[in-house]
């Protein structure tokens, strides 16, 4: 099944592991029940072929039906307890010294903010969450426009992002790696292209990444880059996008301060390569029909300068 980067049956976090245990318990119970019932059915039909087989006395039949019902009740109660127990266990994940992240769902991308008591230390990025391995993570979920749903199958079940409400999902990653998540609540035209990555790394690597993210964008170091920045600041980009350290402060598109460090563009639609970036800026509606990103009709040299500049946002 591919590389199972988005599979509930390949858990790499404690929460998902608990769920998949429950799944396999239910799976095998169900299989047994299913086989048992079909065997009973086959036998029932088979006996009909024998001439001497008559109708069972209603008493015996009643006995069997009652027994079967009793067994199913017991089984179901068992499963009920297993389910509730799993639920409790998942709730027990402690959130003290948990890493606090705030995710806001937009049509059709994710805004990610790393909370911090001192506002200047807060980090905003998009469509990509870096998290430390082995430390609980408390993600608060909000929606900007419509209902979305935050779902990383390898790590946890899904929780909805609902306008006017705030939901919380707590998870913990046990193995370093890249895990793919995707919006799971139908949210309009590009629901299909609203993915994100969770990059789990050892805590020092994570801290390094976080501090790097705190720095503003580096100033342009060459004329081409300067004109690239000019496109951002005086052209269309800054209407929606923010690049910290420049005058670009739009709030309705992803934060681009460190866009070059991300692995994908357009919320997991295409890999983040210079070519992909160029064609994305040139004609977004071709790559992601309906996306809120317009194509801005930049001239070729403007486009080149812009892409060159964005490449420097590491």
């Amino acid at each position, binding site marked *: 099944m591919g590389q199972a980067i988005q599979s509930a049956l390949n858990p790499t976090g404690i929460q998902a592991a608990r769920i998949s245990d429950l799944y396999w318990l239910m799976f095998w119970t169900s299989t047994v029940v299913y086989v048992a019932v079909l065997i009973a059915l086959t036998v029932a039909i088979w006996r009909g072929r024998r001439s001497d087989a008559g109708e069972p006395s209603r008493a015996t039949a009643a006995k069997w039906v009652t027994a079967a019902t009793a067994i199913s009740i017991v089984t179901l109660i068992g499963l009920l307890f297993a389910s509730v127990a799993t639920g409790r266990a998942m709730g027990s994940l402690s959130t003290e010294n948990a890493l606090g992240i705030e995710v806001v769902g937009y049509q059709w991308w994710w805004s990610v903010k790393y909370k911090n008591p001192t506002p200047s230390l807060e980090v905003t990025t998009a469509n990509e969450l870096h998290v430390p391995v082995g430390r609980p993570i408390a993600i608060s979920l909000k929606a900007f426009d419509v*209902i979305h*749903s935050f779902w990383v199958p390898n790590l946890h079940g899904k929780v909805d992002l609902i306008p006017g409400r705030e939901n919380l999902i707590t998870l913990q990653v046990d193995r370093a790696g890249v895990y793919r998540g995707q919006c799971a609540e139908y949210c309009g035209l590009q629901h299909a292209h609203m993915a994100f990555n969770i990059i789990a790394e050892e805590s020092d690597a994570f801290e390094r990444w976080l501090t790097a993210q705190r720095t503003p964008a580096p100033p342009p170091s060459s004329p081409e880059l300067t004109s690239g920045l000019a496109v951002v600041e005086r052209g269309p980009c800054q209407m929606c996008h923010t690049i910290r350290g420049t005058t670009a402060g739009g709030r309705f598109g992803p934060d681009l301060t460190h866009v070059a460090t991300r692995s994908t563009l357009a919320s997991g639609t295409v890999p983040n390569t210079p070519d992909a970036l160029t064609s994305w800026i040139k004609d977004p509606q071709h790559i992601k029909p309906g996306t809120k990103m317009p194509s801005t009709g930049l001239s070729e040299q403007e486009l080149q300068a812009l892409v060159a500049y964005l490449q420097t946002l590491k």
Partner: protein
Amino acid sequence: MSAETDQLAATWQDPPGLLGWFSAVDHKTIGIRFIVTAFGFFILGGLEAATMRLQLARPDNGLIGPDLYNQIFTMHGTTMMFLFAVPLVLAFGVYFVPLMVGARAMALPRLLAFGYWIYLFGGIFLYVMFALNIGPDQGWFSYVPLAGPEYGIGKRADVWAQLITFTEVSGLIVAICLVTTIFKLRAPGMSLNRIPLFVWSELVTSFMVIFAMPSVMIASTTLILDRLVGTHFYNPADGGDPILWQHLFWFFGHPEVYIIFLPAQGIMSMLLSTFSHRPVFGHQALMLSLTATAFIGFGVWVHHMFATGLPQLGISFFTAASIMIVIPTGVQIFCWIATLWGARIRYDTPMLYALAFFVIFIIGGLTGVMLASVPLDLQVHDTFFVVAHLHYVLIGGSVFPLLGGFHYWFPKMTGRMLSERLGKIAFALLFIGFNLTFFPQHVLGLHGMPRRVYTYPENMGWGTLNLLASTGAVTMFIALCIYLANVIISRRSGAIAGENPWDAPTLEWTTSSPPPAYNFSPLPTVTGTDPVWEHTDEVPIVVGVASECREVLVTHVMDAEPDHKKEWPEPSIWPLWTALVITGLFIGSIFTPWAVVVGAIPATFAMVGWFWPKRGQSPEALIRRLEAGDHPPLEQVL
């Protein structure tokens, strides 16, 4: 005898000619219309499904874009739920309930006709709008805010909401007709515990309709108000709440599933008993389980909302309820197996569909248990696992029995048998195609493929299973074409059926095929659950019901003792006019609230035309008669 039957035929026939066709009130005529229309929409919904499967056959497919895809999956869900499944299960009731309870006609025939027209016009309305590119695109569940005024752009969501009004009005009307018929028109001797299981399932279903559908009516109405006149029911910024929509919708939406499922279970009991030539084992246990399912069915809606972050304590109750609702269904399955135990089974096509029910539905039931568990649901909710589950439940649990039931009752409705050969081929292909289509989707869901995506990237590794599913969809499509061909051919040249080709036990098989306009002559009485199999010659018949006017015998609710004889409404064109006026009102109110006010005027006139008596005497004359005491003694009527 034959003089009387001629007289009855003359009395009960629907009037001839085009006008007569539009004024028909015979429950068999209306029932057939319902069934044909429902299957028509089934074909459309199937075509939409096929289109989606083609689009998903391979990754990054460009066959149809997101806009059209979203409209199509919304149309598919809406069509299958509101224009196919519910109308069809009720339609079988409309045709067969009066026959199975030995009644001469159905209660409230004009209302019934009105219900059909409203349903038909609603369906046409939806598809015309779809052709105009105003097809709903927010999902058959229409979650706000996506369906709300700000994000539900244009009139598409209004079309959906108004279609709901059409179909719910129709469904509620049919439910009332069924309940009244089952309670008041049963043949003498058919006490409650002798009601055939299919009739009982229709009764329970009708009650579910009556209490569930108002919820979605309120939901869709408030949605339209939000969109049209700017109310704030679902606006979180002004005291509203999107979750309120989900409560209102699923409080209807889950019972809806059982509304579709219970009548199919009733058909199952009929089929198994007929083809094993035995009374169903545990008749009353089955009645109880149907009823219990209905009751619990109203207590499980929140399991569609586990991911919305509702308080943990509250939702464990709904987990428990959702798991426990399996028990009554289990009881039914066990009783059916007991029925088949050692029986000499005839493997005609209807029976094959009944047996397929076990193989397919039980899988759906078991995955249902998984979905009831909060933690597991959080993983598979809104994935293809749920798509697989719901199709195993609704197609395996409902469509298969319904198709079997159609095979079973086709002779009664048309007088001709369906071809067994074509029937079995269609069945085999359908069975294979179905599992091919939907079993892989369990795996897809577990491997992270969400629902309602118009495409998926190559590197997710979902391609193979999706291709498999699409192949299965094509197979199903072929199977259904064969089924349809079988119907068309056999309609003309099928073998003549006769009264009771399957040697089935219930009353509808004691009259000719197709049944005469007056259903029965003489009117039957019953002494047990399986009248045909009990020695019919000692069983008394009913005499003394007039044949020169539309007179119907009304009986007591409990023991079905004869109570009084009521004169039945004549055929009338007014239900059609009223339906047309109401249709105009509904469609207009998508664009302006004033349509309701303006439309009320012709609606009133239509109502007057409907209710104003055509025959009778002048009030003064009647007063004189009544004051002369020319009326049944009061102790008789009170």
